[in-house]
């Protein structure tokens, strides 16, 4: 029978639409600007102090929406966005040092929606602002790390050439190796200088105190530092924007600093952990009993500080050689990280494990941390914060090499699934070329002016309205179908983007509206085809059927080609390109669903298997 759908199709469409509705609904409840008040210990303030804050806010004409207690803290929800900073300043003035006042975006999603873990999209830096982190790249560490890598390579070179050396020492900008004789040193100097042209070489001492000192030229130092900042920029970009829909901003500031701005001001602790994490891995062999002491290092296990192991100082590979990493669970349900190495890493790993079957290999977890210590000048009483960087190294696994390892393998020994997920993310996004430290953390207002935002939103609404009117005028009853489909399309698009945790920016909104403008294309194709078939003399039911059927190949071909572009842009592109590709792909899929299935369902319900005299199209 023509133009009838089986019941299950109607039900399927209904289910998809209901799910879409649930997950898009939270966007109707935008988060409230709020200030969070607690005393210095993080407990709730007493009512009297709170009343004083409330009075002060009222006096300054700041409208309070609600005051509620949450986790022992008071949350004062405000009516207007613009008041938030003022309100915080006022509350700080009233309470003085006894309390801490912080900005917050209080979620307003009703609890029954939260039960579906539905949450709204974050508003972007341009519309709402967010947090601003200023990070300092540790330039000295960048140099030391480079020197250590070079030292390790030099030791291998010397061992390969059977030249005896005694000790390697890494200083701030230089590297020195002690030799047993001047001849050894001179041969070594010749060999090393061939492979490492960036150093300035000088020979010191004689005989048993022979020493080769290699220092970095100023130009090389600059290059290394520049590289470190740029590498860190790339890594941070990858970290904060895995899916490409978070719309963060990462940029270099001054010679050695990096700014990271993230939209929204919720859960800065988690954001900080990911941004600032400096975790990396090193794969090393366990030392043999006969290995000389100067080639070994002792390390403790992370989850059991009483256990230690003697490891070789030389590193097989570091996390830098990881090309992809994911987290999962092993057969026993313990968290694990699956690792794929790049070409060079795979070769190095294979070479090292092939000749060492039966020995133990260790996975060392390295993290750069820093501790702030406040020092008070005894004379002036001025406080200065001194940051002391330190490195934490711990073994996460020590396992026997059963066979030669290749490009892909897995590591276990992690504490929790969260840790496995974070480690996988860090390995995937690349490690930091040098440790970074937080210098400043502030909230930042929207980068667009209020007027700009208003105009942008207005234009988007009018654009959408024009499309709706156009469809109504041109296709009458079918225009109504198309407009309902359009509304559902918008709902689904918003639902999927909310589920992905996408961030909404003004250009993003314009992009969505444009996708909708293009999404009516599928319906236009179908409706024009129905008109055409009617003119060609088909009966009404046949014309509807033929219209949908003949337009189908055009629609599918056109959308699949565009979808192909979007998928490729997503897999290769970065940052904003990726975000656009995500929106485009979702838009194509939802618009195909609504334009083909949903309008057809409505048409079938209205006209299917009934005598119809005239089609209002």
């Amino acid at each position, binding site marked *: 029978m023509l133009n009838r759908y089986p019941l299950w199709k109607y039900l399927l469409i209904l289910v998809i639409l209901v799910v879409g509705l649930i997950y898009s609904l939270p966007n109707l409840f935008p988060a409230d600007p709020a200030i969070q008040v607690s005393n210095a210990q993080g407990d709730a303030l007493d009512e009297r102090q709170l009343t004083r804050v409330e009075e002060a806010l009222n006096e300054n004409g700041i409208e309070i929406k609600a005051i509620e207690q949450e986790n022992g803290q008071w949350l004062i929800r405000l009516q207007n966005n613009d008041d938030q*900073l*003022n309100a*915080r300043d006022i509350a700080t003035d009233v309470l003085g040092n006894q309390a801490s006042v912080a900005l917050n975006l209080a979620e307003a999603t009703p609890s029954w929606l939260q039960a579906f873990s539905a949450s709204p999209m974050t508003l972007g830096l341009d519309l709402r602002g967010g947090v*601003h982190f200023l990070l300092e790249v540790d330039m000295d560490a960048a140099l030391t790390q480079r020197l250590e890598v070079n030292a390790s390579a030099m030791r291998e070179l010397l061992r390969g050439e059977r030249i005896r050396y005694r000790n390697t020492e890494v200083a701030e900008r230089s590297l020195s190796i002690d030799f047993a004789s001047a001849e050894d040193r001179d041969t070594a100097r010749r060999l090393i200088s061939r492979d490492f042209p960036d150093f300035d070489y000088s020979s010191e001492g004689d005989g048993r105190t022979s020493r080769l000192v290699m220092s970095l030229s100023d130009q090389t130092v600059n290059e290394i530092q520049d590289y470190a900042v*740029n590498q860190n920029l*790339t890594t941070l*970009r990858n970290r904060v924007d895995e899916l490409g829909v978070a719309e963060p901003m*990462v940029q*270099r*500031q*001054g010679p050695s*600093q990096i700014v990271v701005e993230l939209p929204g001001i919720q859960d800065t602790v988690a954001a900080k952990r990911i941004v600032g994490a400096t975790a990396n891995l090193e794969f090393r062999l366990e030392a043999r009993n006969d290995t000389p002491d100067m080639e070994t290092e002792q390390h403790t296990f992370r989850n059991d500080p009483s256990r230690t192991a003697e490891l070789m100082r030389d590193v097989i590979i570091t996390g830098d050689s990881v090309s992809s990493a994911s987290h999962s669970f092993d057969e026993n349900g313990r968290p694990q990280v699956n690792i794929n190495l790049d070409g060079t890493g795979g070769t190095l790993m294979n070479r090292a494990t092939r000749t060492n079957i039966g020995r133990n290999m260790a996975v060392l977890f390295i993290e750069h941390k820093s501790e702030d210590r406040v020092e008070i000048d005894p004379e002036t009483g001025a406080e200065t914060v001194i940051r002391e960087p330190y490195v934490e190294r711990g073994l996460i696994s020590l396992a026997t090499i059963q066979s030669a390892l290749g490009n892909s393998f897995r590591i276990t020994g992690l504490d929790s699934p969260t840790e496995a997920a974070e480690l996988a993310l860090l390995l995937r996004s690349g490690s930091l070329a040098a440790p970074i430290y937080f210098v400043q953390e502030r909230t*930042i*207002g929207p*980068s*667009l002016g209020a*007027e*700009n935002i208003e105009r*942008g939103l*207005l*234009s*988007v609404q*009018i*654009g*959408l309205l*024009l*499309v709706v009117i*156009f469809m109504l005028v*041109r296709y009458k009853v079918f225009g109504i179908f198309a407009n309902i489909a359009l509304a559902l399309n918008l709902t689904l698009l918003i639902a999927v983007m909310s589920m992905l945790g996408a961030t909404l920016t003004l*250009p993003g909104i314009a*992009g969505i509206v*444009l996708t909708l*403008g*293009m999404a*009516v*294309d599928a319906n*236009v194709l179908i409706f*024009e085809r129905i008109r*055409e078939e009617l*003119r060609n003399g088909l009966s009404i039911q046949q014309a509807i059927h033929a219209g*949908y*059927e003949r337009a189908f*190949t055009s629609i599918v*071909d*056109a959308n699949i*080609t565009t979808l*192909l*572009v979007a998928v490729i*842009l997503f*897999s*290769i*592109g*970065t*940052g*904003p*390109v990726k975000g*656009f590709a995500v929106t*485009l792909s979702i838009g194509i899929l939802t618009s195909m669903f609504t334009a083909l*299935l949903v309008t*057809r369902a409505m048409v079938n319900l209205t006209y299917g298997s009934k005598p119809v005299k005239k089609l209002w199209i």
Partner: protein
Amino acid sequence: MKPLSHLRIDFMGRRNLAFVVSAAMLIVSIGAILFQQLNLGLDFTGGTLVEVRYSVAPSLDAIRQLLESSGFQDVSVQTFGASTEVLIRLQQAFDPEVGNEVVNLLRAEGDSVTLVRAEFVGAQVGEQLRDQSGLGMMVALGIVMLYVAFRFQYKFAIGALFALLHDVIIVVGVFALFQLDFNLTVLAAILAVIGYSLNDTIVVYDRIRETIRTSRIDDMPQIFNEAINATLSRTLATSGTTMLVLLALLLLGGDMIENFAIALLIGVVVGTFSSIYISGALLIPLKLSREDLIPTKKEVDEEEEELP
């Protein structure tokens, strides 16, 4: 609007004129891109960051307007931590004087302003993004060509590729020619143009393929005319709705989405033109014949049976 569908416009008869127009636009665009270059925005070039402290909370819009009227480009003004601290980003090559210049301007308004710091900020878009996006485009184009060649025929793939390049080059060319601000939003618009242009091209191709199969005549230009006339009302309706949206964005949307709308408006106009005269008309010099489509006929018939 009904008479539109009975129109018999001889599109192919004027194809040589269209080729000349396209060639001229392409030459101007490529020339502009090469010699004038794009006027890249703050997102791509980086600039200067100035942090200032006011004694009383200022109006951000006023600061923005003041700086823009004093000749600074691409100004972004945000509160920073407190309502009295303001962070200003400018697309201005960093030199130590910029900070004082800005502060003096702001002081001239009678506010008490102190400079906290002025520093250079790098581009928001790294070189990595630039290189990878370029590579991404190439791969995307290659795969789309393969798909079109598989679904239609390789001559169609060549036509689609030329149409796509034509549209993108002209949009970028207009931005270079008029030195419009090219930022990340415009980049997104260009990606949308690619999607739009492909969509248009494939719809026209689909109809050409269908007409070739059903028509009894062998005169390709006439078949193309028939196919393009048949899709004309759809083409105009779709570009019409899209342009309605874009005009609303352009006229009412403010600075932020102005360039986004311009890029897409040009893209939609050029894309509609190219779906007829580049992707369609190019098939004639490529000597597309009915035989080119016969081998795939069986496969498509099979697919149609699966339709809902």
